């Protein structure tokens, strides 16, 4: 009897299709507890095992993995890579469920410029480029982007619905400016190839827009969105040089970018298959001390004794771990929240189709990316959305506290409320929301940072065979910078160990 009643009510609910389903989920990949133990220098267990190895790489994100890739390719195999998290990859980590694999942070790489030789080398190895020609299968399919504006979706992110003649004029002028910047050759990837001390680094992107008469609210939203997306910060907190770099550094005419269901996790996976033997995960380095000419690197089960060390973990951690570390000043990091939403059915929509990147105008968050977008099937029934939210509005410390104080239910509601503006039936579609909180997700290129002496000091730091390699040294947290920093550090180590193929930069 009960079952019949339940059956009937289920039928009725099915008919009305308004019933909200139970949405499960949790916080995942939490690392702040460990981070706080490092910060507070809480006691860690003493290692019971000793290992002697010439070189240790600390940090298994894209910088550390690129170091390993370079060392291995150069024939240098005597090193260990230590990653604190259970899974390597850092901002290029990924997850998987029964519907799809999906990214936890970085989810694309633009088609590399001609001068991005390292990226090209790796991409040839991974089959993304064939003799310089792109493999279309891995380029982002059409439609790439759409924007929810004035109650409807439009193609592309540049607001078009309701744009006035003045808005459009300013778009064109802005593009002209960017074209000139691009032609000047200063905005390179990696940035150190072309960057010179620039007055643009001393003002904010918002100031630059203002000084150049860009008053269009649409254009300002668009540029601000780009800064929030790439740097996790508002245009008013980002140096104009970095803001312009986003628009002026890409030369490729082909429609990109490269993307995969698991985002840059696709690259991580492939690097790991080559490099797994060097990588040790769940290995928290809590102390690095000098011991004569050698270094003692302490984790909870093993103590490593090494001649040299590459610090590829986020640089702000160095003072808490590394004895006699140089001062790390001026490094500001953006707090982020990423959520992966499993959808058991797609929201009802009319008009243009779901794109890869879907953005809601005037939302505090950045929108969502569809994990099944690169699927070859002409239709999918279930999918995973990766929802990005850089907490850019308030000061990082304040946002970080908010991020950690509020529980999962609070963020779940915030995410669903935001999405419901464009998808009123979203709550009937989603079955699971997993949320990853990152207090220090990426470095901010604040005005003055790129030209700062602190950044230069740490970049060139080479005391006692210790080198820094994290992408935060570039002030721009992108795949190419991480790879460049990792490879540069590897080359410096190789010079010390003498096995080195010195690299020649163009």
């Amino acid at each position, binding site marked *: 009897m009960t079952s019949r009643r339940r059956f009937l009510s289920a039928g009725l609910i099915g008919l009305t299709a308004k019933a909200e389903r139970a949405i499960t989920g949790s916080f995942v990949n939490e690392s702040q507890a460990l981070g706080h133990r490092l910060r507070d220098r809480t006691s860690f267990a003493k290692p019971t095992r000793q290992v002697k190895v010439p070189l240790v790489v600390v940090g298994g994100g894209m910088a550390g993995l690129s170091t390993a890739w370079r060392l291995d390719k150069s024939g240098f195999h005597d090193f260990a890579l230590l990653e604190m998290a259970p899974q390597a990859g850092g901002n290029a980590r990924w997850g998987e469920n029964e519907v799809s694999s999906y990214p936890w942070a970085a989810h694309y790489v633009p088609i590399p410029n001609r001068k991005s030789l390292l990226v090209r080398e790796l991409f040839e190895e991974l089959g993304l480029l064939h003799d310089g020609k792109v493999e*279309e*299968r891995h*380029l*982002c*399919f*059409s*439609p*790439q982007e759409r924007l929810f504006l004035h109650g409807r979706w439009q193609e592309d992110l540049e607001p078009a619905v309701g744009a006035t003649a003045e808005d459009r004029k300013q778009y064109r002028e802005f593009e002209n400016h960017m074209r000139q910047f691009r032609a000047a050759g200063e905005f390179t990837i990696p940035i150190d190839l072309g960057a010179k001390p620039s007055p643009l680094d001393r003002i904010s992107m918002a100031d630059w827009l203002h000084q150049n008469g860009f008053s269009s609210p649409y254009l300002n939203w668009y540029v601000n969105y780009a800064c929030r997306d790439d740097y996790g910060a508002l245009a008013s907190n980002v140096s104009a040089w970095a803001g312009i770099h986003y628009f002026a550094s890409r030369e490729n005419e*082909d*429609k*990109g970018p490269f993307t995969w269901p698991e985002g840059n996790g696709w690259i991580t996976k492939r690097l790991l298959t080559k490099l797994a033997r060097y990588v040790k995960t769940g290995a928290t380095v809590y102390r690095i001390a000098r011991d004569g000419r050698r270094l003692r690197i302490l984790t909870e089960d093993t103590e490593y004794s090494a001649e040299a060390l590459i610090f590829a973990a986020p640089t702000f951690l160095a003072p808490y771990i590394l004895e006699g570390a140089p001062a790390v000043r001026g490094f500001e990091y953006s707090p982020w929240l990423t959520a992966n939403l499993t959808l058991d059915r797609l929201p009802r929509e009319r008009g243009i*189709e779901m794109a890869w990147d879907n953005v809601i105008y005037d939302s505090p968050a950045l929108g969502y990316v569809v994990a099944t977008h690169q*699927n*070859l*099937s*002409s*239709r999918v029934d279930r999918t995973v959305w990766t929802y990005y939210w850089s907490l850019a509005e308030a000061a990082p410390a304040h946002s970080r506290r908010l991020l950690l104080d509020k529980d999962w239910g609070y963020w779940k509601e915030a995410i669903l409320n935001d999405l419901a503006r464009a998808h009123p039936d979203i709550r009937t579609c989603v079955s699971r929301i997993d949320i990853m909180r990152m207090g220090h997700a990426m470095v901010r290129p604040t005005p003055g940072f790129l030209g700062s002496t602190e950044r230069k000091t740490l970049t060139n730091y080479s005391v006692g065979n210790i080198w820094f390699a994290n992408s935060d040294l570039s002030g721009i947290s992108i795949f190419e910078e991480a790879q460049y920093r990792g490879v540069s550090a590897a080359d410096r180590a190789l010079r010390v160990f003498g096995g080195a193929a010195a690299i020649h930069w163009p």
Partner: protein
Amino acid sequence: MSVILFLSVFLIAACGLIYELIAGTLASYLLGDSVFQFSTVIGAYLFAMGIGSFLSRFIGRGLVARFISIELLVGLVGGFSSSLLFLAFAYTQSFRLILYLVVIAVGTLVGLEIPLLMRILKDRYRFGELISHVLTFDYLGALGASILFPLVLVPKLGMVRSAMLFGIMNTAVALWSTFLFRDQIGPRAALQAACLTALVALGLGMAGAERISAAADNNLYADEVILSKETRYQRIVLTRWKDDIRLFLNSHLQFSSRDEYRYHEALVHPGLAAIPEARSVLVLGGGDGLAVREILKYPGVQKITLVDLDPEMIKLFSTNPMLTRLNGNSLAASKLRVIHADAFPWLGETQDMFDFVVVDFPDPTSYSLGKLYTTVFYRALAKHLSRQALVVVQSTSPLFARQSYWCIVETLKQAGLKTFPYHVYVPSFGEWGFVLAGQYPYEPPAQLPDGLRFLSARTLPELFHFPTDMLPVDVEPNRLNDQVLVRYYEREWRDIAH
């Protein structure tokens, strides 16, 4: 009093004939062969009326109440008859059985009506007068109905609502009979309540039918919608007007039975006839079995693989008698292997090689369909081509959508294939384009299978000539990361529509 009485006779007669006409018309719509359908439906109906008349003798007491109940039943069964038959056609395999059951049920009930009514009235009129009056109005009603049906009802109301309208009339007769014969029935509240319920049901049915047909985009279709099915993948709609059956997928015309032979002969034979050694053929899309019908004309072909996403489509075209007649029951062929899969991922998984491939997808109206027209798709397809193989791609209209057409040609070229574009005239589509593609130069075949209605070996080479207004234009190839085709297509067809 007597006017109303004989008006009732008039209406009853009209209703009876309408149900018969509806059953006959529906049967010939859905099954074809109208002479056979009408003869058997009328025969069964008249025979059932005889049964009804015979049965009327067993009704003794409570004549009026019985008469009213029968009126109600006729109203309900007749009123919902056409909806029932449409549903039976769409959702069951036993349309014929249900058709004749409905005809016999309605006929029997209608056969009961007049004898009962005459017995009710026998004390009010002289016998001769009664017979004369009743039969006069009976035949008048039949005349009215037979004129109204083709001129007003079918064109304005459609089958479903016409039946319901006349069901309402039967029920109305029942209701006012409770007043007309109030001194002959006794307690009548229950009967009146039943009448009102039936009226409400039929009224709702009529309103609902309007809504259902609106949902079925009935206004989009010029002809009667005879089947409308929402599957997991698409909306399948069949329409029929006289002998013209049309298939629409998501509101896009796929074929008209009057001229589909032009389309399907042109799709298959220019390519397949040019490969005498072809043994294994692949059809992507084309769940209607019409391309397969043409391929079966080659005894040398030993294996046909049909990949279609929608199992409902295959089921429909392999079980519905009207449709199996159209495709010659090709989906039941022993050489045929049917695979329900999404073509693009399937190509990545299969190891099979083919000598001829028919790519018959819906037009690239969306990015998700546009994927099936990209360089990556054609490259994936090319990996499954034997040395001499040819591919033919249905490629929208080179006249209405010139850029779209030449974009498909360019995309095949970019995928490393040689292309041989051609076009034909299909009245229901207009000028239509195809592209043959392969590794080697193409020579039109010197011989075609027997029994073709459109193509001949002599005229075939002419298809490859393009008049000036369809000549190639400068276009980009369609790539997964830059689907220009969907944008060309959208713009070109929008310009035509405006």
